[in-house]
């Protein structure tokens, strides 16, 4: 039987964070704002170890970035005195923004990864309280050629699974990189992904991959929402093929994979690079059940018109069955679906620009609630 806080939805915005809780994913109670006036570009919810830890990347325009965590659904927050993420002195770098906070797999409780600006990947073994810089990526020979997307140069996607040695990341701009030795070394995995803003449209690296997600079946099947183009790889990023046919636009920021069912994924297309709004101002989620061969438009419960984008981390899926789908817009509206996108209901409105959302099934609400946030 679900309790009063069976589901939690964390909403990071340009000016603060809100939390929504629900017993059934149809009615939500909103609390907040937390960290008002500071942007919250990243949230990780870790339900391993028998607790619910919410970790947030916070950034004040005045006072800089930091990471805080709460183990009591936002009642209290803790910030390590010397910072959870700080660049070692020899790098001569300073943290600008935490773009991603990603709990590792169920096999490694306490391990949390982070992706940051400047482009860097970090690993914590104490539940996200202190992170260590991944030197393999920081010292990568490609570093000087990586660039910055409009939002800044950042590692924004981290995919992890039960194989401790295998880690995939995506960065803007730079593209997809994979490590098979637990982050000691990294190789680009971008063959087939177009970079239409470069003279060489199919470079080894340099693409502006906006988000990647791993198919539920594993086995190296991945999805990518590129700056322009939606792709699938069946060989762990070795090669990519377009799956954009059937979508109203191939531009967008986010892609989600079903946590349990292979072949099911969601994208939220935006009209072209120069516009970056829902096609014809009609907001819709598009879902595939066949790994991108066909797409179904889903807009039940969504507004008749919306001219704001959904950003790369402003969408998420929970681990329940059926899977919940969540997203927020730059106009500050947040929607939730308890039926895999068939119908949406408004959770929040008129918030600041939504930068990220994360949802979790809290213990006791579903049989598969032990891990969340590792599917991205």
């Amino acid at each position: 039987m679900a309790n009063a806080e069976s589901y939690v939805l964390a909403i990071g915005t340009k000016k603060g964070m809100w939390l929504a809780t629900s017993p059934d994913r149809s009615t939500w109670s909103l609390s907040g704002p937390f960290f008002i006036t500071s942007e919250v570009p990243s949230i990780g919810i870790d339900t391993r170890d028998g607790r619910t830890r919410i970790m947030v990347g916070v950034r004040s325009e005045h006072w800089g970035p930091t990471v805080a965590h709460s183990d009591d659904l936002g009642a209290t927050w803790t910030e390590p005195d010397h910072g959870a993420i700080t660049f070692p002195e020899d790098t001569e770098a300073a943290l600008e923004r935490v773009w991603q906070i990603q709990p590792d797999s169920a096999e490694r409780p306490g391990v949390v990864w982070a992706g940051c600006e400047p482009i860097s990947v970090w690993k914590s073994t104490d539940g996200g309280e202190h992170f260590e810089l991944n030197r393999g990526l920081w010292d990568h020979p490609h570093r000087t050629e990586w660039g910055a997307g409009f939002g800044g140069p950042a590692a924004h996607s981290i995919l992890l699974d039960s194989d401790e040695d295998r880690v995939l990341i995506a960065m803007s701009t730079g593209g997809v990189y994979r490590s098979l030795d637990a982050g000691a070394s990294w190789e680009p995995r971008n063959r087939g992904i177009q970079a239409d803003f470069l003279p060489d449209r199919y470079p080894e690296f340099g693409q502006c991959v906006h988000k990647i997600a791993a198919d539920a079946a594993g086995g190296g099947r991945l999805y990518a929402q590129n700056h322009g183009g939606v792709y699938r790889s069946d060989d762990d990023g070795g090669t990519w093929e377009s799956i954009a046919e059937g979508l109203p636009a191939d531009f967008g920021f986010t892609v989600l994979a079903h946590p349990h069912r292979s072949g099911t994924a969601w994208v939220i297309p935006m009209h072209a690079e120069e516009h970056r709004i829902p096609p014809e101002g009609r907001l819709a989620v598009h879902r595939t059940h066949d790994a991108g061969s066909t797409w179904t438009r889903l807009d039940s419960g969504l507004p008749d018109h919306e001219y704001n984008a959904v950003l790369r981390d402003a969408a998420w899926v929970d681990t329940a069955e059926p899977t919940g789908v969540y997203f927020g817009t730059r106009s500050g509206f947040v929607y939730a679906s308890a039926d895999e996108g068939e119908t949406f209901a408004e959770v929040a409105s008129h918030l600041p620009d939504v930068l990220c959302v994360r949802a979790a099934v809290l213990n006791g609400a579903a049989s598969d609630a032990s891990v969340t946030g590792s599917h991205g």
Partner: protein
Amino acid sequence: MAEIKGAANGSSTSSADSAEYSVLLPGVLQPLVGGQSYLTASADGAVTVGRLLDLVTGDYPILARRLRDETGALRRYVNIYVNGDEVRRLDGLKTEVAAGQEILIVQSVAGG
């Protein structure tokens, strides 16, 4: 050798051969130091703004991170005034502070 004090509404003393410095904090940062409106430190001879920040934030590492990043650079929208002059127009964090001068930390006009 430096002595660090904090005060919500009082004054502090120093030894005869050292000077005392006060750093005024904006209200938004005061919760990080237990509600104090200013921090004081005493040091032998003149100190730079950077050294003074080291002294007064020694017991308050979160405050230190709010003011400067991990390279030691003053955050872009943090302004520090010495007797009314913003340190970026002087010698930055190397600006020397004399005893009795007012050191004021203010967040700049920024945001939207």
